[in-house]
């Protein structure tokens, strides 16, 4: 898939500057729960109903306000965050990366019906 230019163009994948527009897009793509705070909107991230992290989005009018603090708060490198905001990465990619880093537990595999042993019957 080819990245589609958006309002943040020409900032392309690979550059590290994250602004408020990126922050809002990242929150949306990660399915964050938004909560209004004192001077920020708090984007709270849940995976399987477990709170994994959060980051603040400035409520000021400046769309180019720096938000380079987001990567460390969602355990994702800045380049990947930018791809999340502008390119092809999505919530499943982020969750996969977090599982690989051990930031969220890997769900236990559920045994398939075929592999289940019937309970032994005692005579």
């Amino acid at each position, binding site marked *: 898939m080819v990245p589609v230019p958006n309002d943040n163009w020409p900032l392309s994948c690979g550059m590290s500057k994250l602004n408020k527009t990126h922050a809002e897009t990242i929150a949306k793509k990660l399915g964050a729960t938004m909560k209004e705070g004192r001077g*920020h909107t708090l984007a709270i991230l849940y995976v399987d109903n477990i*709170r994994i992290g959060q*980051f*603040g989005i400035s409520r000021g009018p400046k769309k180019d306000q*720096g938000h*380079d603090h987001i990567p460390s708060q969602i355990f994702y490198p800045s380049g990947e965050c930018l791809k999340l905001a502008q390119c092809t990465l999505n919530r499943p990619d982020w969750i996969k990366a977090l599982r690989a880093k051990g*930031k*969220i537990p890997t769900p236990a595999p559920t045994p398939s019906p075929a592999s289940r042993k019937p309970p032994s019957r005692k005579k």
Partner: protein
Amino acid sequence: MPDMSSTQTDFVRPESFFYSHSATFVEPSGSQSYARSVLGSRSDVALIQLSSSPEKILVLDLEKGYKALRPIPVKIQKADDSYTASFEEANIHASGDSWSDAARNLKSLILDIYDSLITETAVLGPGPKRQLATLLRYVKAE
């Protein structure tokens, strides 16, 4: 704002100065000769600017209803035309146009996150659990 230009700082026991003055001192290993300027433009956030970067400040006072149990160490870094303030131990970061804006934003974000985490203790993952444990050592709701 107090005139800090002639302040004698007890860097051997900085905590004694901290508790006897409404002032902020960081870097116990530093010495006065490295301190180029003391105190920022805001009375609620003080700065000691050391010759090495990044700059470090301590946040002492929180808004009414909250108490700082100990000074909150904050690292300020400049990135392009904005500043990022970080409470690294709690992994909380905020940005601003100036270092004092970034610090002020961080102060409010710390309380936002504190309020939010403390109401959701049952569903916290490992990262937020650590954050709350750290925050409880620094912040208390009164």
